[in-house]
């Protein structure tokens, strides 16, 4: 067993927190000095309704082992209904990810109010351990080969077309 295996796997989780509730709650957890696992990295959006499912898959593709989404409790969205739209998309996304074999613990939607700093702590700690047990998400690598990597510049190619065979 290599040294890497002996060291514990540290999951890396990307979180999308809505400005008015969850992000504020995370700030509150900080002000109250509630410590929690360092594995979650927060991206701030104004509303959980901004969350495009493309972002979630992008996070996985870039190397995240889990994605956490935080929004306001139903009925309390600062923008009235954004969190309901997030719920609609998440409901369908869950089923899609299940069909694609991604373990359900890797994606989590939590409603966290601005005063619930303790919930932020609890959810982050919980999710970190759950994802740790699952191990790293290693998606099959794939690259989109850019045409710049082609050796023949466009002008030359056009010249060939115009001039016929060289």
């Amino acid at each position: 067993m290599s040294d890497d295996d002996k060291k514990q796997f540290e999951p890396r989780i990307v979180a999308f927190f809505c400005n008015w509730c969850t992000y504020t709650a995370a700030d509150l957890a900080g002000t109250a000095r509630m410590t929690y696992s360092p594995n979650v990295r927060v991206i701030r959006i104004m509303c959980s309704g901004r969350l495009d499912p493309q972002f979630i898959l992008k996070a996985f593709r870039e190397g995240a082992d889990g994605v956490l989404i935080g929004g306001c409790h139903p009925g309390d969205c600062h923008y009235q209904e954004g969190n309901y739209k997030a719920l609609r998309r998440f409901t369908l996304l869950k089923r899609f990810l299940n069909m694609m074999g991604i373990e359900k613990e890797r994606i989590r939607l939590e409603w966290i109010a601005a005063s619930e700093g303790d919930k932020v702590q609890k959810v982050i700690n919980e999710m970190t351990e759950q994802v740790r047990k699952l191990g790293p998400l290693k998606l099959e690598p794939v690259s989109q080969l850019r045409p710049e990597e082609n050796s023949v510049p466009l002008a030359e190619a056009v010249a060939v077309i115009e001039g016929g065979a060289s």
Partner: protein
Amino acid sequence: MSTANTPSPNGKPKIGVYVCHCGINIAGRVDVQATVEFAKTLPNVTVATEYKFMCSDPGQEMIQKDLKDGLVDRVVVASCSPLMHEATFRRAMMAADANPFLFQMANIREHVSWVTLDKDAATEKAKALIAAAVKRIVLHRPLEKTRVPVNSDALVVGGGIAGIHAALTLADAGRKVYLVEREPTIGGHMAKFDKTFPTLDCSACILTPKMSAVRAHPNITLWTYSEVAEVEGFVGNFQVKVKRKPRYIKEDLCVGCYECVEACVFKKGIVKDEFNVGLSKRRPIYIPFPQATPLVAVIDPETCVQIKRNKCKKPCVDACERDAIDFDQKEEIKEIDVGAIILATGFKTFDAGRISRYGYGKYPNIFTSLEVERMVNAAGPTTGEVLLKNGEKPKAVGIVHCVGSRDCKTNAYCSRVCCMYSLKLAHLIKERTGAEVYNFYIDMRTPGKGYEEFYEKLLKENVHFIRGRVAEISDWATIPEEEGKLVIRAEDTLVGAVRRIPVDMVVLSVGMEPHEDVDEVRRVFNVSCSHEGWFLERHPKLAPVSTFTDGVFLAGACQGPKDIPDCVAQAGAAAAEALVLIDRGYVELEPNTAYVQEEFCSGCKICLGLCPYGAISFNDEKNISSVNGALCKGCGTCVAACPSGALQQNLFTDEQILQEIEGVISYV
């Protein structure tokens, strides 16, 4: 297919990364030097440095100098939460003639140093957040806050003491105010009281001068018997439709002489009088109470024979010397434009019938506190006497506190005023009847100025206080002394025994509740309610009179149970905040709004129905959607739904967030 590599519109960006120590708040846990070294390795970073307190003047000057010297054109500050200092640094950038939106913060204090035990892990996390900000800021574009002018008129909804005070304050400041009240008269609940605690001054004596002032004020347009039907627009520019219900009396002609009321074919009251809380009956044509403002009669279309069946001799018309009665009067819709709205719609009392074991509605002499208020009022149904249903004075009265308050089965909250008014009623009942008065309480809540002293006074007046929540009120006698009485059963917790107290009359101190239709009302004004139904303030401590809807303010009991002093204080506060808005003359809109890239919009219309603010409309000429930047609040819900990425949000474009994702996970 990825558009992540769209070049920065300013040419090659020059990013400055400033990492704050925040004393030892950050530096005590995060290796600041290491993060600075790391920042230097990131693409497009031209300056990476650190300082003890970035938010201080020297810290801000550091940034300003680099901007002015052309070393950087975009700024990342890794320090506390943006909710703390984003505005500070944006202002610093503006002062250096740089666009404040070419700025991003990495929260490495609240989200890293304060919550992470392990120093290495904290440093790694800080690096990741800095990388995210650096990647993202490349795609920021200069943005401007737009200014929209503000209409200087105001609307106050609700004519109770809070609404009255707010309207007078605004009117005295020289602003035109529309005061809209649902009932035929202003005055609210306070007009129904006899005396107010703790001073026991006469409610009408302190209220009616204010009501007259409203009527007389040249700046106040008073519309009673009216409701707000629709509100459109946004802060500073509201278009409001007010529905004026027909009184069938011409308001400008009626002088309130009562002749029509006396002349009515019904010589006695036929329908429960709302003002007297159902304790008496009124005629179809009526004036709510002698000091009603405006002092104008009203005809109730449900009970008036003429309106219902067109079959009346109409003696009221004959009696009116001013020819003010008009059976053809119709509902009118008034359209007004205002800049600020104050909601002062008040409360309703808890329906005591919901607690069946208290026997309200079952036994005749059980009254709510509001009914007793009307009784003790000299202008009320019993001309100020406290009487049982059989007309006699009670010899023993029980006052039950916390009916519909502090009760997990009905309302969990404390209604704040009931202890004080229960003491007041105890005093008044004792004064008017000489009866034995028993107050059944859980705690005595008397926190205001003069309140505890009022309680002391009552203690000396021979009123009995039993500390125990009443379990049951019934007429089942177990001993001869209880025959024909109402028996109140409660555990006297100070004595440690269950007691049965026989009384002639019970007063249920009902709590305060939001109005029945508060859910509909809140939608008209686009405000939220807490889960009990009180209008939701922007912040319980720091912003109790504003809401999350800019331009709509709250005053009085509609925001939560409170007494008259607090209602008046809040009304003044709401008027002041409305004045801030009106006097400034403009509103600055945050630029993080959505916009449509017209060349990509196919007109699929998926976005239209998603906006709760109606900010998206369809342009029939161009056949595409378009966003009203003044209505858009910047949630981004439509952007996530747009199937072609034509809709984007300033400061939160797809590209920016995708770069942030790349930054936060692919470097560290």
